[in-house]
């Protein structure tokens, strides 16, 4: 069991520093960008359906529901992972501070 705990993550193929969490403002920018693109896509879709004469409006809410659910799910999961990671990294920083402090005080 000791080997399990002293598992060295540098041997891991993920480098943790690369995946440090973004700031909140960057999230907001990305989200607004995706929202604009979605709206644009919807508008162009509506225009195109008008042009071809197929006014199947009754199906648009389904389509919108699908895309919004999918996007919400993936974004939500990514946000959830990011938030947990931030918490864990904060805890790592706390623990390393405490550890070095006790080592220095000895």
């Amino acid at each position, binding site marked *: *069991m000791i080997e*399990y*705990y*002293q*598992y060295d*993550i540098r041997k*891991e*193929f*993920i480098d*943790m520093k690369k*995946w440090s969490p973004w700031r909140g403002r960057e999230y907001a920018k*990305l989200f607004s*960008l*995706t929202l604009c*693109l*979605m709206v*644009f*896509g919807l508008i*162009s*879709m509506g225009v*195109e*359906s008008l042009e*071809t004469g*197929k006014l*199947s409006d*009754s*199906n*648009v809410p*389904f*389509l919108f*529901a*699908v*895309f919004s*659910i*999918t996007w919400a*799910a*993936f974004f939500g*999961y*990514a946000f959830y*992972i*990011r938030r*947990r*990671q931030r918490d*864990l*990294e904060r*805890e*790592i920083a706390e*623990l*390393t501070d*405490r*550890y070095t402090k*006790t080592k220095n005080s000895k």
Partner: protein
Amino acid sequence: MITNLALIFFWAPTEMVMGLVQKVLYVHVPLAWIGFLAFFVVFIGSVMYLWKKAQPWDGLAQAAAEVGVLCTTLMLVTGAIWAKPVWGVWWTWDPRLTTSTILWLMYVGYLMLRGYAPSREQGARYAAVMGIVAFVNVPIVYYSTILWRTVHPEMVIGPASETGNLDSQMRTVLLFSALTFTLLFVYLVKERLALTCAYDRILSIRHKEGIY
């Protein structure tokens, strides 16, 4: 996140006129593909973990299982939403849907097993066994539900067969969306793995210090 932007770009310009709800298939089918890919990764990770007892494989299996369950849930939900305008019903019991439901149930059981296990290492072992059993069971379930459907062909409402005509433009869009979803999957699995690494690191620091 850049892959997500690419996803949006495919959606906006390349619009197929063949019925608006067709577009749901560009999300639903790639979700099905990466769901299956995720469970294949779980299988590989479980086998390698049981074989080599090395920790990264177990982390890979767990990350892939979580993302896979998410994608399968989305696949079932989007499939139902797609089915309502096209077939008129929310759900039928044809082989693919039934197999997807059983698949979802098995991997939700996998994640629950990890949660309920007494210790992390034991949970990893049990979950590895469950991952192998679940993946081996998938073709058997598929075959049995096909046999079952040939005996009972007309269920609640028998839908017509899938829209099998893929002209080349639709195919390129489908492939492109599959590619972007695969990239999304790889990204999510990497994120989840980083989370596992952070958790392991905390455990190792705590063990070194002696606080639990």
